[in-house]
């Protein structure tokens, strides 16, 4: 039960600082200078979203995934673009629903109708989706799934490899029932191969198996360890890949073949795809990419280093920016500027790359940064047109005027869950922007409606199914 005195500290409503107005944002600019950004705003502002159509209005998605965020993420990509998305959970719910950081029940939100708690990770990805339940362990549940499959364009599942096939509801079986079905399996490492998924493999399994963990974090020589992402990031990237595959399959079906197909998207392979030169470098001469902390193996200056009130990123791989960075540093520390500019060994861009040169560069830079806050350092460097910025904490992300103004972060007043702060869809477009309609959904909330509308099963029959543990 939630602690009614939680939280004990005073919580400011969001936004704590009002969102700037266009007049404030473009103050002091000539009409001509304002023309371009304002013309963009006219096409792109999210306040206009609901006046515009949705790309995927004609598409219906059935998401049967559970326990991993990869399936939820993939279906979110589609639901944000207008697909009618049904999340189909086991009768006791997707396990993600009940998870909460450190087991803290007080973090969970409750819906206004039933008071059912919902974990915030699941809530954030349960967007624009309905919730139905089906017990696939029972043959009757599987029969109902086959009936549902007739009505959907896309099916997403992440069960252990071969499980659906053994149950008679895999791709091979469902394509006979609905040849137009786009069937997508998502997982960590795959349905086939010597190291295929076992039940219970969860991100960061994929992160560890693909080289990501090995390559992230401070080097051993700095006292560091291989590090996972705070996020289930392999799932998020894998889910995005799945969405690309699903959209590609829909395109092909509706323009060419009239048929669906089988898609397999793994979290590990999505990350392998984007581990840029790991594989090329290995094949070149057997190099095993080392982790390099917050510095870069291929560009100097391009790093995050500590500063007075946190951590700070500076970028300047070209000469032009290199000199501007040191000029900025020299404003208060001419001794440091001289140290760098006097060093002949740092003259050539490529000569700045070896590790020892980077140690020198960043020790000198950090000696300047130690006296500057992130805001202060950014202010000075931006004046020299050097891209830089602080490592933001979550509250800073939520309150940054730019992000608020552009609606990267927004608050919805959800009918069931109240005010919810969330990350908005980055699909900003003039024709068919992505959007949020609702966030979170109690378990099985839409059983009655969906079972009646799609399967012609009325309330008393549904009650019987529930009694027999089928839903």
């Amino acid at each position: 039960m939630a602690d009614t005195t939680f939280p004990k500290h005073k919580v400011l409503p969001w936004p704590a600082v009002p969102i700037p107005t266009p007049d404030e944002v473009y103050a002091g600019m000539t009409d001509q200078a304002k023309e371009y950004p304002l013309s963009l705003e006219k096409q792109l502002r999210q306040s206009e979203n609901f006046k515009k159509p949705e790309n995927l209005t004609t598409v219906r998605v059935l998401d049967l995934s559970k326990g991993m965020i990869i399936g939820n993420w993939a279906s979110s990509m589609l639901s944000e673009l207008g697909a009618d998305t049904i999340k189909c959970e086991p009768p006791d719910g997707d396990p993600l629903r009940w998870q909460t950081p450190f087991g803290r029940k007080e973090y969970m939100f409750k819906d206004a109708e039933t008071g059912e708690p919902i974990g915030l990770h699941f809530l954030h990805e349960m967007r624009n989706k309905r919730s139905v339940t089906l017990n696939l362990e029972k043959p009757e549940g599987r029969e109902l799934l086959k009936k549902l499959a007739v009505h959907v364009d896309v099916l997403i599942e992440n069960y252990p490899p071969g499980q659906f096939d053994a149950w008679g509801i895999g791709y091979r079986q469902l394509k006979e029932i609905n040849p137009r079905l786009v069937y997508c399996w998502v997982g960590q490492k795959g349905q086939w191969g010597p190291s295929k998924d076992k039940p219970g493999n969860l991100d960061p399994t994929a992160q560890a198996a693909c080289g990501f963990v090995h390559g992230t974090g401070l080097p051993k020589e700095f006292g560091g360890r291989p590090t996972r992402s705070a996020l289930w990031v392999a799932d998020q990237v894998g889910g995005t890949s799945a969405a690309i595959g699903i959209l590609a399959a829909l395109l092909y079906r509706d323009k060419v073949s009239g048929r669906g197909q089988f898609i397999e998207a793994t979290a590990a392979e999505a990350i392998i795809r984007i581990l840029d030169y790991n594989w090329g470098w290995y094949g070149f001469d057997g190099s095993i990419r080392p982790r390099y902390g917050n510095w870069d193996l291929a560009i100097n200056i391009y790093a995050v280093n500590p500063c007075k009130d946190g951590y700070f990123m500076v970028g300047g791989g070209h000469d032009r920016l290199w000199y501007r960075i040191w000029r900025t540093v020299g404003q208060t520390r001419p001794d440091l500027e001289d140290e760098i500019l006097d060093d002949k060994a740092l003259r050539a861009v490529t000569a700045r790359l070896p590790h020892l040169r980077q140690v020198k560069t960043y020790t000198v830079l950090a000696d300047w940064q130690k006296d500057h806050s992130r805001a202060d350092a950014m202010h000075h460097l931006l004046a020299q047109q050097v891209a830089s910025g602080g490592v933001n904490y979550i509250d800073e992300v939520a309150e940054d005027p730019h992000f608020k103004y552009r609606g990267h972060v927004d608050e919805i007043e959800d009918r069931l869950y109240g005010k919810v702060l969330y990350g908005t869809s980055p699909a900003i477009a003039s024709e068919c922007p992505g959007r949020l309609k609702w966030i979170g959904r109690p378990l099985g909330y839409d059983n009655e409606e969906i079972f009646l509308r799609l399967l012609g099963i009325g309330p008393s029959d549904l009650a019987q199914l529930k009694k027999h543990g089928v839903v």
Partner: protein
Amino acid sequence: MAINQGLVLTCAKCSTKNFLDPYPFWNFSGNTKCAGCDTIYAVSFVKGQQTSGPTPGSGKTDLLPGYAEDKTGTPITGDKIRPAPQARPDPFSGKQKHIKQSLRGKPVSGSPLKKEDLVGSRARFIADLHKA
């Protein structure tokens, strides 16, 4: 211009500049060792600010500098400084590495070419591989 004492530790004895890199030394209290003359220095940093030292001392070294240059600006390497991360057994030179074969011994165009080496936009020795 001499550098103010801080993360760059200029040795009072031999004028070697010891670069105390910002991640390991940012919040550090203990002994480091001058890469030029082996003098032990006790130093303390809190959030990168030097709170005490560098005081010549004795005892064991807790952490070596990340890099150092002697008073002429010549790099000091080897075991006087902490090792660099490496991708292979041989340390990085920072120079281009020119190869003619991939890891598995097959031809690859990994070395500079001259115009006369080219057929169109590719090396002749690669084009020749595909000749019937």
